[in-house]
């Protein structure tokens, strides 16, 4: 009889599921922690209209009008002055390429004089437009800000200038991605996301599989040193990472026509270190997880903030300071700066050096943790 249902059997299964759910701490934690994590990250950390973007200001003259333009920019909330640009003698091009600033404003000498003569002087705003989402709002606001600042100044004796709508020739240079093509930013970033996902997960699973299937006991009984096991386990997945890199780069350039303006060697260094850092993390996860399922869950715990806080999906500078600090810990954040820098901005090794150093630090710490935690016995 198809309708011969038993409430006793259903409640038996119901109870068993609850008992198992309670015992499986990680799944339980996942069901509770992941929603909270998502609420915090999406609710507080993510902001698609980033403000307070660091701006280098090159004022070649200091007059009430130029000061008014700068203070107008600050009041809009979109721009924040990056101190010391002029003192350090760094060009706007260097600062933008290294990612130290998002904008550079140049007001040339004689600006005020030409403005008063009605000569439509030029005002230059250079923008790092590699991520169109991060820069477009501020760029769109810039002309309005300048106009408003001038209107405020054009009073009294200067009110004759009010009549001229385009008193200033606002020149905006969208560097690195002038057409604002989203793929230019997303596709190189995807390389980092794909490498994170596969490298961390595959390594974590490869080790826990031995534990879950009972082959770990055999492996430990064989005379292999922990370093030999670790290197032997990590190398094959490094090769897979390199193949993935070639596929993604090929697609990026072949299908999406993403420009590659920098040196391949610089990117190769970044990719190599990034893969190793992720593999070391995967190895660490494998020393924590007891089953392949737990290894996947740990990977997911790491992957979610990596996607959201690294600047892959949402502008890094749009996030509050605490989220940016968290983001700085993640290797993906640094790798995205490298891969976007090298491909779009033509960054040199010296430009991405701090990012490489951050990845190396992460890799070193994870490597040590993994070696310390690696089980030499079944204890």
């Amino acid at each position: 009889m198809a309708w011969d249902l038993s409430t006793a059997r259903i409640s038996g299964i119901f109870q068993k599921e609850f008992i198992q759910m309670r015992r499986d701490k990680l799944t339980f934690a996942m069901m509770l922690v992941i929603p909270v994590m998502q609420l915090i990250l999406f609710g507080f950390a993510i902001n698609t209209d980033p403000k307070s973007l660091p701006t280098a200001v090159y004022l070649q003259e200091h007059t009430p009008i130029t000061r008014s333009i700068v203070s107008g920019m600050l009041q809009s909330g979109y721009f924040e002055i990056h101190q010391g640009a002029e003192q350090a003698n760094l060009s706007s091009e260097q600062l933008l390429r290294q990612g130290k600033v998002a904008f550079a404003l140049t007001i040339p000498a004689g600006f005020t004089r030409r403005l008063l003569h009605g000569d439509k002087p030029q005002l230059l705003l250079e923008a790092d437009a590699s991520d169109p989402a991060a820069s477009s709002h501020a760029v769109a606001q810039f002309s309005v800000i300048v106009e408003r600042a001038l209107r405020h100044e054009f009073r009294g004796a200067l009110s004759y200038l009010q009549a001229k709508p385009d008193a200033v020739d606002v020149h905006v240079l969208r560097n690195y991605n002038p057409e604002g093509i989203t793929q230019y930013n997303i596709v190189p970033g995807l390389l980092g996301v794909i490498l994170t996902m596969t490298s961390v997960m595959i390594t974590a699973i490869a080790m826990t599989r031995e534990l879950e299937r009972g082959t770990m006991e055999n492996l430990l009984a064989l005379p292999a040193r922990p370093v030999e096991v670790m290197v032997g386990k990590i190398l094959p997945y490094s090769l897979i990472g390199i193949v993935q890199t070639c596929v993604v780069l090929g697609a990026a350039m072949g299908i999406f026509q993403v420009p590659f303006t920098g040196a391949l060697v610089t990117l190769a260094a970044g990719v190599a270190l990034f893969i190793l850092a992720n593999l070391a993390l995967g190895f660490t996860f494998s020393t924590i997880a007891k089953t392949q399922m737990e290894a996947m869950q740990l990977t997911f715990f790491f992957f979610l903030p990596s996607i959201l806080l690294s600047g892959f999906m949402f502008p890094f500078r749009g996030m509050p300071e605490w989220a940016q600090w968290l983001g700085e810990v993640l290797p993906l954040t640094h790798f995205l700066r490298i891969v976007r820098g090298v491909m779009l901005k033509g960054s040199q090794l010296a430009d991405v050096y701090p990012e490489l150093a951050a990845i190396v630090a992460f890799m070193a710490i994870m490597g040590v943790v993994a070696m310390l935690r690696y089980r030499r016995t079944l204890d």
Partner: protein
Amino acid sequence: MSDSVFAIDVTGLGKDFGDKTVVDGVDLRLPKGQVWGFLGPNGSGKTTTIRMLCGLLQPTRGQGRCLGFDVLSQSREIKLRTGYMTQKFSFWDDLTIRENLQFVARLHGLKSIPSLVDTILEKLGLAHRQHQLAASLSGGWKQRLALAAVTMAKPQLLLLDEPTAGVDPQARRDFWDEIQQLTSDGMTVLLSTHYMDEAERCDQIVYLANGHLLARGSVEDIIRHTGIYTYHIQGRDLRMLAQQLRLQPEVANVSYFGSALHVSGTDQPALLQRLQGLCAQGQRIIDAPPELEDAFIALMQQAGKDQREYN
């Protein structure tokens, strides 16, 4: 130390997991070239002791040497010279038979591996199946593969954890022939088993219960040591009699043995008197030689009593 006559020489070996003591105060002196049987009920600490001997577990207490190397600090040296066969098949199911053997050979740093593996496959009779996944093997074949793999590097000591569990009688016999061959080549073997016939094939038996070593010696030594006496009772209505006997303090064990009742105890006069008192008309008491199993049951009961008194 490696010229010692003992392959295993440990004293006071003990292991705690958390606050639970699993093995305590185990002394073992296993002479080279012998086969020793490790017996005891499930959970008695056999596997834990074997794992401590080959460096898979760090002992909590005790000290000693395996093949002349310190069990606490030189586990790599021990692993290089020891073959350890796990209780559960722990080779790689998703590698072929050949690949498993090659992998083990590489980790042992052996030379001319392809021809070595060929020889082993030929000897095992698995040459025609060498490219099958290990998962496709039956229990008996897995056991043979595992034994071949752990003996490939010509270890001086073999630690085998219930190597014949779940294996058919023919495969067990072949296995013991192989063990005999290996020991005649000078290998020392310590193996755990639940089979009495296998225990009787060993030079010495070590009996472990609740993590303590209760008895050690040859089969005759252990039977003599426990001072056990056994009788067979034949006749009708044995079921009733068995129920009554199980309640008697003089009776250590009652079990059915074919159509007879097998009764054992350590106090011979008292046991015999009790049997004569309880046996009805048509039930016959026959003197029977005690077996190893009787001795072990007596040891286990003794251990259980000690444990209760201790607690």
